[in-house]
């Protein structure tokens, strides 16, 4: 097992040659052994035909472009403890059949052998999908992780895993949405009654409607990380 939860806020990750770990910058709490940290990026391009290369390649070009990379690769041999601002850590087991769609800053860590890509939300549901991105605060893009392995994600408070399937539609507050796995369609809809009922502020009228077959991860809070 690459990942293990030490407690609900800390992840222990084993690092070895050929089994590097990519994790959120600044999330390293402590480590044993001979481990080094270098910047990494989400590989691959945008849009439909994404190549989805592993995280370690292509980093030189991106880093030199002046971006401050949000990810660090841990290489060498040892074990690293990761955590971020006391947020809750959930391990999502990926068996290669589905793809995990999650906001980049909800990603805590994943094995460098998994494929990642930046995806334009428009491809997930047309223009409405793009609106979803704007509303959840994800911007117009999200991160897709695929392959076999464990992915550690962050949330404010506990995470609920809700299954969607059998024709049922699940409605989710966009600010509580963390990510999803599987063949799901996520669209943003405006619910007038909801807007009046909640009245918390702008953007509250929007709800995410999710259908298809898969699992949705929801956090117990409306706060962004």
């Amino acid at each position: 097992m690459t990942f293990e939860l030490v407690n609900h806020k800390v992840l222990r990750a084993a690092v070895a040659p050929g089994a590097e770990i990519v994790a959120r910058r600044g999330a390293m709490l402590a480590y044993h052994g001979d481990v080094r940290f270098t910047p990494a990026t989400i590989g691959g391009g945008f849009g439909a035909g994404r190549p989805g290369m592993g995280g370690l390649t292509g980093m030189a070009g991106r880093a030199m472009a002046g971006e401050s990379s949000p990810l660090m690769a841990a290489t060498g041999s040892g074990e690293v403890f990761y955590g971020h601002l006391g947020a809750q850590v959930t391990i999502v087991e990926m068996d290669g059949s589905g793809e995990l769609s999650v906001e980049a800053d909800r990603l805590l860590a994943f094995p460098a052998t998994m494929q990642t890509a930046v995806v334009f939300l428009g491809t997930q549901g047309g223009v409405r999908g793009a609106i979803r991105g704007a509303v959840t605060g994800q911007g117009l893009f999200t991160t897709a992780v695929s392959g076999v392995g464990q992915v550690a994600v962050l949330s404010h408070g506990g995470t609920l895993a809700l299954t969607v399937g059998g024709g049922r539609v699940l409605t989710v507050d966009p600010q509580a949405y963390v990510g999803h796995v599987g063949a799901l369609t996520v669209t943003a809809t405006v619910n007038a009654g909801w807007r009046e009922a909640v009245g918390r502020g702008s953007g509250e009228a929007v709800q995410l409607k999710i259908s298809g077959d898969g699992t949705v991860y929801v956090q117990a809070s409306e706060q962004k990380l």
Partner: protein
Amino acid sequence: MSIVLNPTNLPVDDNINPYAFAVDLNGEWFMQKGRMIAYYGQIRFNPLNTMDSLQAMVSAQFSSPLYARDWVVASGNGKLVLGDRGFDINSYDLDDGNLTVRAANLLAFSPGLALKQSIVPGFVTLIGTGKFLASSNGPVMFAEPPVRVDPQALVGWADCPSPAHHHDAAWMSSFLGAAQGFFGRVSGEERQLDFTGAGTVLLQSSEIVLEDPSILAAATEQTNLLSTSQLAALQQTITARLQS
């Protein structure tokens, strides 16, 4: 519904839940201000400098003028419930031992322990035999040296030598590292604390550091020693940190 607690079934010198602790008070305990969330019985809370009858005890056991104003003595008889901003609280027993802990994380301790200010800024050392409570963001983890630690995740250490700074040399000397250093960008991983020897290191589950006003006071005071150009350089460092 939670079970209803009262003085007969409250835990005795133990956690009620990970974030609250019940002390069975018969005498005195040193406590950081504001940590009492409830109590049964007759308990008084006095600043450290106003206890005439206990002055001798207080001056012997608490020798840190820097922190004195943040602490009180809880005295009397009853059940004292302590909490600290929702952080995890754990109790530890020292048996003729010594442990250095971040001052902001130290919640309370029994008077069998003596508190001294550590040379490491922001930390205090507890010596003797007794019980103390420390709070942390997320449960405390114990690690044994050799281990390298993010300074913000460090809560304290026992029995092993004070840590040394470790710079990830490979990162600094690699092409990218030099480039990023040139642009003044930090990854957040270069600064690590290195522990060696035999002992135990206490870590918290995140990089959130509990605020310690005395460190700010000490740092502010030191700016008096800086020249104008040095102050400008300090300002840039502060801006970069606030943005990271």
